[in-house]
């Protein structure tokens, strides 16, 4: 009885103290106010839709078409601009991925297609990066399932309802909610018109030229700015995909070869040492026989197999190189040898 009274006493003290200090108070539900509810057909049109004047086409938005500039497309919203500190307002968590690649500015606009062209509006986004590698890297990261690769240039990827392209420091996205067969041609036409206006060129960086050309998947070149394949410090890689035989028929089965210039043999050796140390502690690797030296490949190289495939690493001078997802040991040796020879 006494202890119960004591608890009540102390609890009462708590409540009084909390009230006095203004701390620990239960937050109150805001008083109900009218409005702010979604009603189909009434509230589902953004009130902020603004079409800006010609002087609003600047920075990343310079290449955005004015109303009617591309036949059949009327500007209905924008351009709107978002800098690094505001990008999260457009894409929340995805913004960090762009910022990592050196994102500077996004220009966005919405176009209404003429009747018969597309059933839905088209959203156009142009991202400006601090350098060309940023645009290429983000393009390569997002590229997948590209259609018509034999007729479209390698810096452009057409999917069912969107086009992704890069040129100079810019990444272009043209998206519609219409996935009818007619949409492909319509968005390709619009994307090509915008892509031509982007400053700069779409020539691949020289470093990618050092990767083997035989068996390379057309338009598979990329640049990875962040830590890759689970290894800290393995970043700023130039990459390309390879299909050396029928064993690698599907895109998802392709081998990736990569190289990164660390600036000195000492730095390259240090990174390779760290990668080795990580792998030697990895049970999924040790269970499959651990690291196996690849004799005569670069200055030093090895292969290892994990639960999924065989992978390689090596160094030559200041360059760290390797390959991912080999299905056969002989492919690993041969392609890594070819890669090392070209460096």
């Amino acid at each position, binding site marked *: 009885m006494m202890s119960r009274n004591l608890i009540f006493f102390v609890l009462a003290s708590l409540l009084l103290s909390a009230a006095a200090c203004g701390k620990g108070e239960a937050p109150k539900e805001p008083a109900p106010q009218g409005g702010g509810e979604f009603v189909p057909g009434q*509230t589902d049109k953004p009130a902020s839709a603004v079409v800006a004047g010609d002087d609003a086409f600047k920075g990343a938005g310079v290449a955005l078409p004015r109303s009617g500039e591309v036949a059949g497309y009327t500007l209905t919203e924008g351009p709107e601009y978002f800098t690094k500190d505001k990008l999260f307002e457009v894409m929340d968590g995805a913004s960090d991925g762009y910022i990592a690649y050196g994102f500077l500015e996004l220009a966005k606009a919405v176009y209404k297609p003429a009747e018969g062209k597309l059933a839905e509006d088209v959203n156009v986004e142009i991202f400006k990066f601090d350098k060309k590698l940023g645009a290429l890297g983000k393009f390569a990261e997002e590229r997948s399932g590209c259609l018509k690769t034999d007729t479209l240039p390698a810096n452009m990827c057409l999917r069912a309802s969107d086009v992704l392209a890069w040129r100079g420091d810019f990444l272009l996205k043209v998206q519609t909610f219409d996935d009818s067969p007619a949409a492909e041609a319509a968005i390709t036409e619009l994307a090509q018109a915008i892509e031509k206006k982007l400053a700069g060129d779409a020539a691949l960086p020289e470093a990618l030229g050092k990767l083997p050309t035989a068996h390379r998947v057309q338009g598979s070149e990329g640049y990875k700015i962040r830590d890759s394949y689970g290894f800290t410090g393995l970043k700023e890689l130039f990459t390309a995909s390879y299909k050396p035989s029928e064993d690698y028929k599907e895109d998802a089965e392709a081998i990736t070869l990569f190289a990164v210039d660390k600036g000195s043999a000492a730095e390259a050796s240090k990174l390779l040492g760290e990668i080795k140390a990580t792998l030697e502690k990895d049970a999924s690797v040790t269970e499959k026989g651990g690291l196996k030296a690849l004799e005569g490949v670069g200055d030093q190289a090895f292969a290892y197999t994990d639960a999924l495939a065989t992978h390689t690493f090596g160094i030559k001078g200041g360059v760290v190189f390797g390959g991912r997802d080999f299905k056969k040991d002989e492919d690993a040796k041969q392609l890594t040898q070819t890669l090392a020879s070209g460096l």
Partner: protein
Amino acid sequence: MSKAGEVQSPYKGADINRRDFLKVGAGGVLAAGALTAGAAALYDRENRPRDAEARGLVRDYSVPDDPAYPQVVKIQGSDPEQTLTRAVELMGGIRRFIEPGDRVAIKPNIGWDRVPKHAANTNPLLVAAMVDLCLKAGASEVIVTDASCNDANRAYKNSGIGEAAYNAGARVLLPRKDRFTEMPLEGRLLKKWPIYTPLVFADKVINMAICKHHNLTNGLTACMKNWYGILGGQRNLLHQDIHTSIFDLANFMRPTLVVMDALRVLVRNGPQGGSFADTEVRNLLVVGTDQVAIDAIGADILHLDPRTVGFLKLADGVLGHVDLSRVRLKDVT
């Protein structure tokens, strides 16, 4: 006894440990009171912390566990309404979770200006089906809302959720500024943050997430990450330690029921997507009460090892179980 989610003392099940109570009350009397309040909470079965490791304040909307029913149901089906209805039946029926008169808040993912085929938002037919179930169980009001990342009007319209939920009888609230209030969470990272109140001031809260790729969270976003939609303010400030913030939110929000939509899955370029080519039809639905176990299934759906996902590592054994052998799982796939 209070209804789940009702605020009596500041927070239900608040785990005020010795370190935390010092943060809550600086003054001597307050500190003594807080210590005793923390101890008293241990005597209150309803308010008892689930696990001593789960620091921080808790909003508990859950219903008591019943060993007669599974904690998680994994089910295959292409019809959203039928599949959800069957899954909820297997969980013991909607009346196990919703009582007549309950005010229910449903939290789908309505973050993105995308259509259902982009699989960036929760399937609108699933949301409508859940509204219908709750109303049939006697809910006095069902609110459907989310703090969208993109323009809310566009996201609500193009996701199809605005219209579907409205037509099913829900109040569909837009994330107006005055609906956010700064609230203490006292989590590991989230100490105090603007919180979207319609999702907090309810008797029951249902988390209806979509399972998809996310470029920041080791590749997965599903139920635990879906609680980011209760946050206002500059959410990007939390991205440096996103796993801890996700853990804090899932600790804070203990839902009545969790639904993970994996009918169509965004497998690349998440969370916003934008290309139909980045989606795959999986026709899977997972319903349950263990949000950690459900997210672990989500990781598997995306071919990820759940033990490598940071927020699941933090939550495993604390808020739920990654190891599905420790969960009453009914797999009807």
